[in-house]
């Protein structure tokens, strides 16, 4: 509804004298933010939230922090675990968003080691946060205050962060400490998977070669691609996966794989034989970002974001999922909640660990030629 009004206004303005030829660019600019800076819409009674699976604190079939949010604000949450891959989620919603229509969601998440946060923002398919409703934004850690795709945090706030490294099953192999070992050790042949997300897999291979994943060049990218291709050709790599490495790793089809830190943190509870480590030459750190898509309620979404930026709530989510929070003071709260988790460096990485991690080069993630080369490695 809201969008239609905005488009109507633009059309009137166009008719009133702006050159008709300028209209297309106005359309592009429209959702881009000038139209609907913060506030403006009403608080709703329901929040629709799209997120990845296993990405919210869980107790039985309930999500305690969502229940607390409803108790505190009266806003019910429809929580959808319908993001299984950044690419596929984007492909699904880009149709309606490009028409200026909503997608029935007030918040979605997108990972910064894909090209999608940039696309959502540059296409004007997300709405500005209402920072007046988010006083807790002052709790955002400094390191996350100014990402390249949204330097002022106008449209986004971090949900959780995680690391890309190596997981292995101790029943089948000793420690797998480097990506070279993962891709070349004959003992692991055919029992290795990598992630199909380019940023994760190419990033760790670049780091392994001594190249900087945060500043990719054609040479360093091609070196990484060749290394992965060689491992595919030799049969070392069995498949490329999303979250679905978890099951085969636990039941022994896989000896080792490129994996996300928090997944393994939660798997270890049932499978103490599973280990995870940052590769010796470095791993990747990434952050999922909450965004308000066109048609979403800014007031409702901003109210929720404020709620999860309370360190007490953020601590429950971080401890419950095994991923890293971007909220200041969360560790202090986690100590009160669960001292064991509070000392887990995978959830609360220390400086030594952070020094081993790089962020992917945004230019690499959006490079069409690189994407095509990566798809060819996947056999596609």
């Amino acid at each position, binding site marked *: 509804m809201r969008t239609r009004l905005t488009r109507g206004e633009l059309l009137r303005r166009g008719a009133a004298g702006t050159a008709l030829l300028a209209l297309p660019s106005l359309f592009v600019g429209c959702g881009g933010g000038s139209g609907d800076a913060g506030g403006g819409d009403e608080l709703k009674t329901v929040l629709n939230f799209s997120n990845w699976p296993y990405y919210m604190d869980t107790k039985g079939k309930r999500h305690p922090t969502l229940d607390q949010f409803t108790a505190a604000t009266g806003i019910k949450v429809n929580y959808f675990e319908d993001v299984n891959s950044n690419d596929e989620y984007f492909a699904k919603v880009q149709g309606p968003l*490009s028409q200026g229509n909503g997608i029935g969601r007030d918040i979605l998440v997108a990972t910064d080691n894909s090209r999608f946060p940039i*696309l959502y923002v540059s296409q004007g398919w997300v709405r500005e946060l209402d920072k007046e409703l988010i006083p807790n934004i002052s709790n955002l850690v400094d390191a996350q205050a100014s990402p390249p795709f949204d330097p002022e945090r106008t449209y986004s706030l971090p949900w959780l962060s995680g690391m890309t490294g190596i997981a292995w099953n101790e029943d089948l192999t000793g420690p797998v400490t480097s990506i070279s070992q993962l891709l070349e050790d004959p003992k692991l042949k055919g*029992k290795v998977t990598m992630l199909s997300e380019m940023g994760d897999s190419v990033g760790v291979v670049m780091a392994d070669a001594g190249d900087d994943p945060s500043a990719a060049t054609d040479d360093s990218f091609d070196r990484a691609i060749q290394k992965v291709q060689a491992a595919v050709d030799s049969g070392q790599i069995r498949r490329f996966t999303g979250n679905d490495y978890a099951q085969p790793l636990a039941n022994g*089809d896989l000896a080792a794989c490129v994996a996300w830190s928090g997944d393994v943190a939660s798997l270890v509870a049932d499978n103490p034989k599973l280990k995870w480590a940052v590769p010796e030459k470095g791993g990747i750190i990434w952050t999922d970002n909450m965004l308000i898509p066109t048609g979403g309620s800014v007031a409702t979404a901003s109210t929720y974001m404020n709620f999860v930026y309370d360190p007490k709530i953020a601590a429950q989510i971080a401890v419950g999922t095994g991923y890293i929070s971007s909220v200041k003071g969360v560790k202090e709260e986690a100590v009160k909640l669960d001292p064991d988790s509070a000392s887990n460096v995978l959830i609360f990485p220390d400086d030594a660990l952070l020094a081993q991690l790089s962020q992917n080069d945004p230019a690499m993630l959006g490079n*069409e030629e690189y994407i095509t080369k990566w798809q060819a490695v996947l056999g*596609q």
Partner: protein
Amino acid sequence: MAGSTGPVGGGGFFHRHPRVTPYLLLAPGALWLAVFFLVPLAFLGYQSLQSGIFPTFEFTWEFSNFSDAFTDYREQLLRSFLYAGIATVACLLLAYPLVYWIAFRAGPWRNLFLLFIVAPFFVTYLIRTLAWLNILADEGPVVGLLRGINVLDDDGRLLATTFAVVSGITYNFFPFMALPLYVSLEQIDGRLLEAAKDLYASPAQAFLRVTLPLSAPGIVAGTLLTFIPAAGDFINAELLGTPKQQMIGNVIQAKFLESLDYPTAASLSFVLVAAILVALLFYAKIVGTEKLTG
């Protein structure tokens, strides 16, 4: 239908315009095809001639999309036809004796056995394929047995191999072969076989000269219903294969949903349709068109 139960005016209309009736009956189907087949097909055609990168595609009569699609993905295209072909033959060889037995020997249990063929397919396609991940798992019972009897090496496996992908396709499309075959076998008049016997045909001769030709429409229908969707399948290669088993369906899926390269995806879809049509024409030429229509 147009008679006593319909509104009086309607009945009158159909009586007065008898030649219009077939067209009116045709209209819903034709409309359905136009809206849900022709329009998307035209849009796909439009998209296949665009150029540019997401999100700014422009229509530029980019015919090179087609030649590029063919040259860049020839391997996956050929592989799709190879896998679909093997799976179709395997389905035929497995299904024929089975449904033959059901049609001629199962007597009153026929419907029960048919239900057994169809029952697994009450479960969704994806879940059925995922089940194979567990059945064929490296540490699972099947691989354990095959290793025990030395069919597989100690580090041999079934998952993530060509064998797993082709087997998955064979399994998933089996009823599309079995059911048309059953229908054609079940219709065969038993007296024809008796007559063959009376004329001193051996059982093999009777099968080759009576049963097989009479079941040909079922074979043709079954092979088409199996081969066409199998050639475009991507789930089996995705879940049971490796990058070396990717089929054309995987490429199209990835181009549409992962690379967001819509023009290439659209042109690949057309290349696949065209390739299937060419294969069908050859097939029709060989078996004769009257068998295609039964």
